[in-house]
């Protein structure tokens, strides 16, 4: 499976096809705006730590693949997963609160940027371990098969995760068991300071997929419609029990995390890389196609900006989780909680005194 199915391709590039592109643009714009606010949260000293990984430049992967997902589908993401979850319909305010380590966040302030999850939207969790969330989709695929759910599980990860052996173990299992699973590699050309050609000899990741018996495709992330169309085809295949692998090529616009100024790459390269802007390209195409006049888009952007500004206020106004919550959620509600050390010491030392 390398050739795009003609019907999908036709639909994607049909004149007046903006009915598809506009929502994709909106999703991407929201991601871009949100991530900019995450940067601001950090600058304002409101974030929990500095391990904040922005997906600016990668919006098409999130928007395009998630568009192909059905409500009952599930997914895991890597540490750079804000955009994916937003595309899936997350509440940006609760996301921002989580990134700030606040009680009103998706994970009550315990997880943070790298561990956002939401079972209601099928988000089985972001992960701070490169590759760590990948095998879970194999398990979700097993569940779907066994419990006869018509759902696909999608693993999103970066190019860096192609260095992790667990990816190939998972791919092999998915192919062996005909699981409804899709592996999506967001190839932003870098794993921290390591350019992809410094991490592997052969960047044709689709060859690896086929070598393990999966469908494999590579797509240029500059073009969100192309991403969406290819993703749709692979998702349809996956849903039919033919798992796939999709590599989306894009460029990480900024540093790895908030403290990284990317001294390891040339300014020229960055300038050129940032021309690979899927949001801008979608905007220009919309205007070109005439499906949306510029003023409408400006209004949409402004509305999004206001919504995203409010997420910072929400996060700032939310309270930190109470200290006592520390001992909750290690085990299920109703199970004995761990004894706090202060309680334990009190018990031991007062006995000694008695």
């Amino acid at each position: 499976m390398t050739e795009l199915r003609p019907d999908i391709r036709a639909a994607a590039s049909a004149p007046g096809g903006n009915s598809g592109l506009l929502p994709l643009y909106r999703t991407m714009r929201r991601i871009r705006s949100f991530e900019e606010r995450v940067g601001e949260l950090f600058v304002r000293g409101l974030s929990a730590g500095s391990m904040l990984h922005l997906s600016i430049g990668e919006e098409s992967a999130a928007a395009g693949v998630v568009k192909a997902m059905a409500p009952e589908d599930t997914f895991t993401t890597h540490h750079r997963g804000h955009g994916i979850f937003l595309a899936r319909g997350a509440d940006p305010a609760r996301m921002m609160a989580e990134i700030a380590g606040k009680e009103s966040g998706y994970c009550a302030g315990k997880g943070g940027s790298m561990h956002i999850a939401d079972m209601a939207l099928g988000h089985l969790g972001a992960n701070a371990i490169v590759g760590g969330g990948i095998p879970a989709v194999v398990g979700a695929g097993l569940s779907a098969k066994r419990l006869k759910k018509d759902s696909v599980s999608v693993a999103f990860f970066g190019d860096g995760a192609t260095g992790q052996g667990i990816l190939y173990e998972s791919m092999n299992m998915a192919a062996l068991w005909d699981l409804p699973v899709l592996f999506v590699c967001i190839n932003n050309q870098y794993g921290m300071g390591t350019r992809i050609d410094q991490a592997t000899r052969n960047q044709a990741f689709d060859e690896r997929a086929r070598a393990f018996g999966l469908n494999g495709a590579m797509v240029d992330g500059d073009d969100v419609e192309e991403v969406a169309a290819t993703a749709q085809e692979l998702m349809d295949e996956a849903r039919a029990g033919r798992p796939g692998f999709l590599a989306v090529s894009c460029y990480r616009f900024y540093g790895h995390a908030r403290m990284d100024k990317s001294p390891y790459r040339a300014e020229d390269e960055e300038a050129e890389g940032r021309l690979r802007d899927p949001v801008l390209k979608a905007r220009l195409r919309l205007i070109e196609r005439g499906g949306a006049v510029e003023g409408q888009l400006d209004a949409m952007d402004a509305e999004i900006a206001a919504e995203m500004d409010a997420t910072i206020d929400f996060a700032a106004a939310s309270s930190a989780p109470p200290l006592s919550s520390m001992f909750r959620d290690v085990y299920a509600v109703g199970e004995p909680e761990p004894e706090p050390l202060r309680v334990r010491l009190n018990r031991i030392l007062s006995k000694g005194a008695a």
Partner: protein
Amino acid sequence: MVQITYRDALRQALIDAMQADETVVVIGEEVGRYGGAYGVTKDLIKTFGPERMIDTPISEPAIVGAAVGAAMTGLRPVAELMYVDFLGMTMDQLTNQAAKIRYMFGGQIGVPMVLRTQGGTGRSAGAQHSQSLEGWIMHMPGLRLAMPATAEDAYHLLRHALTMPDPVVFIEHKSLYTRKEEADLSAPKLPWGKAAVRREGKDLVIVTYSRQVHYALEAAEAMAKDGIEATVIDLRTLNPLDMDTVRTHVEKVGRCVVVSEGPLTAGVAAELSARITEECFDFLHEPVIRIAGEDIPISVSQALEAGSVPSPGLIGDTARRLVA
């Protein structure tokens, strides 16, 4: 009451659990067609089919990872590691994922999986197939841990594990599989986290688990001939730890030996010793004494292998000196 081996009790627990709960699946190497490296899952594939007895490639990290994902999406997987020695490559999925997911995600969801595996010495299986690694697990918040010593406990603890909301590591002992015992498989559900007092005596308490329970009992019987009476406590689970039972007995007699097959340093025996000392200090006539595996790898040579871990003889000698 039935006469049953430890192996068959485990097997029966799986059968009964799979019959009671459609969502239970077994996933691991050679669990299906082969019937398990130690025969625990023998013929289960005939009853439950390959969809529930899932044979996997040799991919331990992904086996555990897949179980995590399955547990989060409606199945209750029993992931099997053929040897506990293979934990090393799965500790990321087990401790960074399974153990922390409920917490990191603010209590949204748990990971109700059981990781079944077996460890210990006794088969000249060499340094990479004879370890006792429960210490690593006990150290990790978020993982329940059971190590049954008897067929009856093997049955009930495994049944119980398969109803629990959080990940359970279930470690069997390779030298116990063929041990046959009287067992009541119909007894009411064994409470999780409750130790068994296998024997009571006035002179000292031996706290242990898994195969060492039998060694401790053997030592205790021998001592009894000389009038030394030991209490033997079988912990059954290491998370949680039944300190109430331990404390009650240690406070009664004031002398305690703790026994673990794992390496001495920073292992289960250390935890038992530290905890008992903290909680029973004023009652102790002597320090809590640890008997454990030597701080060395296990040799393939039978003599060296047996010499590297506690024996009834060593337990007995130590206990006698402690009460002398």
